[in-house]
């Protein structure tokens, strides 16, 4: 199989091929995350109606996404299994939240 051949190829080298992210990029990600934290705390004090919650969760999802992509190296991994597990975990979480909330939201007592 192709991946077996790829592994056999890797073992010939003393150092396994692995992406090393530049320190500058990590600091940039850190700066974005810190700015987003203070942005979300500030924007919560502005009256946006029901969109306060939407904006807060949107900022949180952006922050979580860049942590997953850059700090957790998902952007650089060649392993498809990592991405498959991540996507299926998010899918199951959505299933849990969406089905439960659509049940409660459509009840007369809800």
């Amino acid at each position, binding site marked *: 199989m192709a991946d077996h051949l790829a592994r056999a190829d890797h073992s010939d080298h003393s150092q396994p091929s692995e992406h090393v992210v530049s320190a500058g990029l990590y600091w940039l*990600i850190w700066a974005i995350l810190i700015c987003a934290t203070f942005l979300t705390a500030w924007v919560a004090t502005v009256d946006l109606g029901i969109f306060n919650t939407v904006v807060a969760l949107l900022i949180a999802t952006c922050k979580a996404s860049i942590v997953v992509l850059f700090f957790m190296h998902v952007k650089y991994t060649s392993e498809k299994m990592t991405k498959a597990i991540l996507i299926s975990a998010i899918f199951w979480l959505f299933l849990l939240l969406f089905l439960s*909330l659509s049940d409660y939201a459509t009840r007369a007592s809800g």
Partner: protein
Amino acid sequence: MSDRAGVGETPLAVEHVDRPELRHHFADVVQQRNAASLGMWVFLATEIMFFGGMFCGYLIYRRAYYPSFAAGSRSLNLVAGTLNTAVLICSSLTVATAVRASQLGKRKQLIGLLFATLFFGIVFLGIKGYEWHDEYVHHHVPTFYFSAQDLVHDNPNLNIDPQATKIFYSLYFALTGIHAAHMIVGIGIFTVITIMAWKNKFSPEYHTPVEIAGLYWHFVDIVWIYLFPLLYLIDRR
């Protein structure tokens, strides 16, 4: 699909004398590292479901008792919550750069960054403990002495149900408590990693423990990234 007959001919079970860190049941270090990483990702998927159940309960009760949840949220210490979010982001930076230092074989830098991570983790727990004490003093811990009279008094125009604020505080203490338990486990893991780094166990060829411990730490950070707006910022207008 090519045939797998060739696999049997490769000496898979040979002890790798030159690579003591490579376990004999793995073909090579890349396969061993991928297996360890895969295991951690599967564990994190179960963790998403674990926290997901509590998030789901939170969302259902928040819909049902919004004014009480908003009043409970306003009583939390916003400055401490924001500061703690920043502290955890700093710890994620030190973890990410620690993994980088281990990839490059920079031992001194690695040890320094691991100590910085432990420091930030302990600072987070310290601020969290300060908040919990504050809430205990104000009778907001949902036990025998629970009282939400101060919230009812502060929000006379809102329809605040003390029993519903008790649900908010129960969810708040459960979510932050289990998150803090994960932080304590993370500090334990990183203490072991720091000792291993001190004993010079890592090299550019082998640093899997640093990497997968880092995955765990970043996950705990992500949980807090969601907890912060959901608990502290329900209604701050």
